[in-house]
Every structure is written in C-alpha cells, then in structure tokens.
C-alpha cells in the first residue's frame, strides 16, 4: 500500500521539479536578466545555469526513481 503511494507520488515530485524551475525562472532569473543592472547579471546566470538545473534535475530524477519503485521498502 505504502509502496504504491511512494510510486504514485513520484509523478508529484516530477511536477514539483517543473514548477520550481518555472518559479525560479520567472521570479528570480528573468527579472534579474531584464533589470539592466550589471550586478544582477551574475545572480541571473547562477540562477539560470546552476541552481535551476540542479534543483529541477534533482526533483525529476528523484521522481523518476520513485515512480520506478527504487525507493520501495519491504512491507
């Protein structure tokens, strides 16, 4: 029963990964790219090319593994 829930929630983690990527892009990276200030360029690049792939990638992979039953436990 719990293993089924763990697997089903895998889809949820994938969705959270995509949503968090969208949120980081819209709330942090893009406004900083568009601010026109030189000091904002570095954080914008760090958000877009380091933090975003790391966070999104972690959730997507975790969700994928959960969906495949990699985190199943003996019941």
């Amino acid at each position, binding site marked *: 029963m719990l293993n089924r829930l763990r697997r089903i929630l895998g889809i949820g983690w994938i969705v959270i990964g995509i949503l968090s990527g969208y949120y980081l892009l819209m709330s942090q990276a893009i406004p900083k790219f568009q601010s026109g200030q030189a*000091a904002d360029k570095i954080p914008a690049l760090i958000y877009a090319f380091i933090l975003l792939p790391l966070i999104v990638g972690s959730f997507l992979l975790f969700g994928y*593994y959960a969906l495949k039953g990699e985190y199943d436990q003996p019941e």
Partner: protein
Amino acid sequence: MLSSSGSRKGLVSVITASSVGTLIEWYDFYIFGSLAAVIATKFFPAGNPTLSLLSTLATFAAGFVVRPFGALFFGRLGDLVGRKYTFLLTLVLMGLSTFLIGCVPDFSTIGYAAPVLVLLLRLLQGLALGGEYGGAATYVAEHAPVGERGFWTAWIQTTATVGLFLSLLVIITVKGNMSAASFTAWGWRIPFWLSIIMVGISILIRLRMQESPLFLAAKKSGQTSSNPLRDSFTKKYNFKFVLLALLGATMGQGVVWYTGQFYALSFIQNTLKVEVAQASQLIMWALLFATPFFIFFGWLSDKIGRKWIMLSGMLLAVVCYRPLYTAMYETGMTAGGGALPATLILDSANFWKMVALVFIQVFFVTMVYGPIAAFLVELFPTAIRYTSMSLPYHIGNGIFGGLLPAIATYLSTKATLANEIALQQQLPLPYEKPYLEGLWYPIVIATVSFVIGALYIRTTPQQKD
C-alpha cells in the same frame, strides 16, 4: 573504532580536534558576512558597476557554487587519501584565506587588485568550507561506537551555531573597545587576523590525530574507491540515496537552519528596525540557550532513531513559523508604542520575549540539525562516504538554505507592493500581514522535505561501516 580499544579519552580528543577546527572554519566564514557592510565600503565602493559585479560574485559564488564544488573536490580527496589529511588541508586553506582578507589593502590604496583579491580569498573560503564539514563529521562518526554516533557527531553539529556566536562575540568585543571611526578604518581587520591564531592551535591539535580506523581498515582490505565521484553519482544504488538525503533531509534542514539563525536576525534588524548591536545580542542569547539541545537531540537519536526527530523539527517549524513571526512583530510594535520607529530599542521585558521567540526557532534547528551528521554518515558506505554525504549537505544548506534571503525578500516585497497599489486604488488590502509572506519559502520547502523524508527514508538506520 576507539570504543573497541577502550579509549573513551581518545574519543574526546577526536571530538575536540575535529570540533575546534570546524568551529573556526564556521567563524571564518561568518565574519565575512557579519562585516559585509564595512568590507563593501573598503573594497567595493558604491557607484562603480564593476565593483558591484565583483561584490555580488563574492556573495553569490561563495555560497552557491564554490561550497558544493568544495564538497566534491575535498570529498573525493578524503575518500582517496584519507579523512585526516583532507580536513587538515581545508583548515589551512580557510585559515590562510581569512587571515589574508584582513591584510588586503583598501581599494583606495591598490585599486582593482583589492576587490579581486578579496573575491578570490572569499571563493577559497567557500571551497574550504565545502570540504571541511563532511570530513569532520565522517572522521568523528568513524571513530565513534555504532550506537553512539548521534551523540558524538552532535558536537560537530554545534560548531556552526557556536561559530556564528563566536563571530558575533568577537565583532561586538572589538567594536566595544575602540571608536566607531577606528573600527571602520582598521579595527574590522582584527577578527580576520585572530583567525590565524585559532587555526594554528587547531592545526597543531589535528596533526596529532590518527587516521579514521574505518578508512584505514577499508584501505587495508582494498575496499576504498578508486573513483569516489563515479561511484557516488553514476551508480544508481548510491545516487538514489544522495537524492534522498538531499530532498528528504538536508533541503528541509537547510531552510529551517537559515530561518532560525539568519532570517530571524534579518527580520529583527530590517523589519522591526531593532538597533544592530541589540539585535546581535538577542540572537547570541538565543544561540547560547539552544546550543546544548544539539547534543541532546544527537543523543536522543541514538536511542529512538534519527528520522522522526529531524522530521518533527521540520513539522514544528512549518506549523509555528507564522505564529512566531506574528508574535515577534507584535513584540516590536509593543516596544515601539504601537509603531516601529527608525531605530527600535527593546526594553528588558520585550528583549527577553524576543530572545524566547528566537530560541524556539533555534530549538527547531537543533532538532533537524543535531542528528543529521550521523544520519548522513550511516546512509553511505566508508568507500564513498566523504564525497556522498558532503554534496547533499552543501546543496541543501548552501543552495536551498542560501536561496532563502533572495526568495523571502522577493515574496515580502511583492506583498508590500500589492498592498501599496491596493491602498492607492482604495481597494481592500490583498495581504493582511505582508511581512509574513517571506516565510512561505521555508514553509513550502520544509513541508516537501517532510513528506519525502516521512515516506521514503527508512525508519531503521542503514548503518554502513
């Protein structure tokens, strides 16, 4: 392990050598942040876009990029050549970088070389910090008896908080013993110079320590990894635990830690406008009262398991943050006579009430942070332990925790602006308490981490030797 040879005294020496070094590394890392305003005037004067860029790079890159990179670099080294020499190296690197930051001439003396040097030294600090924690936690855990790892590694867990406490204490003491002008002119360098003495003592202590017995045994039997990075992150069996450690534990722990120790200070200083020195004193008291609970929860985790102590800390934080910050705001308003003045000085009763409210937050930190070193150590085998535990720790803290100021500021600014627009248009205010909106970031992240931890982390620790 030391217990098997009956040397409890030896275990205390291991803890002392490891904890003092880690504490100094945290101290070194924090004094830069605590003195950021003075450092900015000396090396990154306002109005120059290039300097502004370098300043931002120093702030962002040290926490977000270099710390995880340091975890990978030194983690790999620690799994290849041993824990002792690796975390000795991180200590030397951190101590020298910190001392040298205190020696770099101002921008007015050597021009652009000054900010570039400070930036490079700050990056080295981030690199060293990334390598230190995993080494110290692994080293202590590999000396400790299996059933007592929570208690012994909890001493390492106190170092981040005590390091913050020490940095505030040193800065307040130095400031208190000279005029404001002298402090701004050269006195700010003293906390950086002091580091070299503390690091020197710590190096002498660490040099006398032996290599981890579990690492030595693994090396002797040829069970160490020839490529820890590959084994940690490309082998699915290990990598899925790296992901679980990150999303089910360190991510939630990171935001609870940053909220209790940094966001609280920022809220008190910037939202409530409490005078800077009083705000620092207030945080120091809360840290002092809460620190013993790191040891308590580490010890308790040996008795009842680590998972539910950490997850309870996250859940309590999720449930209590909004009421706690409402109470903090109301305390500030009461002290200000119904409004918040430009600089608020708390009277004794409200000061201690505020200390209690911050203490509760740091108490949650002790629940999530006290047992986590033992939890991480037990999740991975000796051959790849340093590498595998360091990365999720520094991503959880450096990235998920480090994002807190930017996202919380974004959320609360957005709410304040929406209220101002509604006020101009004579519409009902969309946010009743805009100052609480920033808390949604730690609340959401800690909730997600709680659910992942509760469902996917096994209740019985996987004690891999």
